[in-house]
Structure formats: C-alpha cells, structure tokens
C-alpha cells in the first residue's frame, strides 16, 4: 500500500504528513506534562515543609548534559542523511541511543538509591511529584529509544528502498526526542534546584 505524502509535501499544508502528525502529537504531550507541572506548583505552594532530603544535583546535571548532547547527535544524524552519508548518520543515531541508555542508567541509580533509603512516592508529595514527573519522562525516553533501535535495526532497510522517507522518519523521531529534552530542561530546575 502506498501511503501518499510521506515524502512529497501536501499541497494544502506544505508539509509531509509525518511532520504535521508529530507536531500535533507534541502539542498533546505539552498538555500532558503541563498538567503535571501545574499539579506540582499547586501541591508545592500548599505546604510549608515541602523540601525533604535533597536530590542528587551533580548526577542530574550530568543527565542534563547527556540529553542535550543526544539532541545534537540526532539532528547531526538527520543532517548527514541529507548529505547522503548513511554510515555517519547511523553512528550519530547510535550515539543518541546510547545517550538514552546512559540517561536511563543514571535515573535507575537515582531511583534505587531512594528505595534503599526507604523513600517511595507515598513518603511525601515532594517525592510523589518527583517520581511521577521523572517516571513519565523516563517512559518517554524509553519510547524514543525503542524507535531509534528500530531505525538502526529492521527499519534501516528503508534507506535502500526509499531514502527520503527514511530521512523523514529520522527527522520526525528527532523532533520527538528534542521535545523529551525540552521537558527535562524544565524538569531539572523545578525538581532539583528550586
């Protein structure tokens, strides 16, 4: 089945379908995370004893650099596909994926440390909001990693059969990944620094 406008832009929107689709999806994600941010603000303002044991700022700072770095590598992957350099693009997608692994690894360590000190979401709203926001964000990172794994694995065959469509898939996945990075850019100061 030939799906139209996966490569050529639609005459009415000026975009290929995937690009409009991903932006509409990201708009819905803004509402999802926005609702949780709003909840954090309301819960936090309601009590005087908000802060409990501080979170690990150096580790979270490393995670911030990891995610920002992965945003650069995914856009460099797309740039290299446009230069017809599949080998280099694949390397950058691999680096992006491994940055995701590093991020989830550091997050898992943070969670394990909390559980080892008997700190759970139910302990205090301070932790409940932390686990909810970072947990949902972590699931989004995992989702992105699954897509990158597909693009590196069975999905890579499309570069041979339809390179422009493959390039568009990498661009669209990159847009999703940048959004995940954007959410962390706000999560990091709100949870760890304020």
């Amino acid at each position: 089945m030939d799906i139209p406008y996966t490569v050529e832009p639609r005459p009415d929107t000026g975009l290929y379908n995937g690009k409009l689709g991903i932006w509409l999806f990201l708009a819905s994600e803004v509402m999802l995370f926005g609702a949780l941010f709003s909840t954090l603000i309301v819960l936090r303002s309601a009590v005087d004893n908000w802060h409990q044991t501080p979170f690990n700022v150096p580790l979270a700072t490393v995670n911030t650099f990891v995610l920002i770095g992965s945003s650069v590598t995914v856009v460099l992957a797309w740039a290299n596909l446009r230069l017809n350099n599949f080998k280099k693009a694949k390397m950058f997608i691999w680096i992006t994926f491994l940055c995701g692994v590093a991020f989830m690894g550091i997050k898992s360590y943070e969670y394990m440390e909390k559980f080892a000190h008997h700190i759970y979401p139910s302990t205090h709203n301070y932790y409940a909001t932390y686990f909810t926001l970072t947990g949902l964000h972590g699931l989004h990172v995992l989702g992105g990693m699954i897509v990158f794994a597909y693009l590196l694995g069975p999905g890579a065959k499309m570069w041979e059969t339809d390179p422009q469509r493959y390039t568009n898939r990498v661009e669209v996945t990159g847009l999703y990944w940048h959004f995940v990075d954007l959410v962390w850019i706000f999560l990091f100061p709100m949870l760890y620094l304020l």
Partner: protein
Amino acid sequence: MSGHSVEEIKKETAVYLAVFAGLAVLTGVTVGVSYLHLSPGPAIALALLIASIKGALVASFFMHLLNEKKLIYSVLILTVIFFVALMALPIASEVGATRF
C-alpha cells in the same frame, strides 16, 4: 536529497554545535544560580527564565521552528494558549483559598 546544498547543510551543522555550546553554558548558569540561595520568588523566576531561553534554543534550531510552515505555528499558538490556561486556572483557584 531535500533541496539544500552541501554548503548550507554544513553551515547548519556549525549552528547546531554552537547552540549545543550555548545550552551547556546555560546549564552551568542554571546550577550556579541555584547556589546563590535567592529567595523563592526571584529563584523561580530566574530558573524559569534560563530554562525558557534553553527551550527556545532547542525549539528554534534543533526543531527548526524558525523556518517552519504557518500551520505548525498555528498549532503551537493554540497549544500555548491552552497551556497558559492549564497553568493559570489551578493556581488561580488556590490563591486565597482557606485551608482547614
């Protein structure tokens, strides 16, 4: 491939790396500001300002929003309006609320 010359794509790559450097510096600034131990109001305002600048850099350059089509801008303007409402309404309902 997609209608851009090799030179243009290489220039874009240089921009991506410059934006990354800017984001790294701003991350350092974010952490540094937290050590100033400002009072909550200014601390929150400054942290969100820096985060917004970082977010704007990611959206403008990595997500190519600077050169996007009008339809995407329309979708995002609608999103911003609803996002502001989503943030403002719960907070507004809590302001001056009596706690028992």
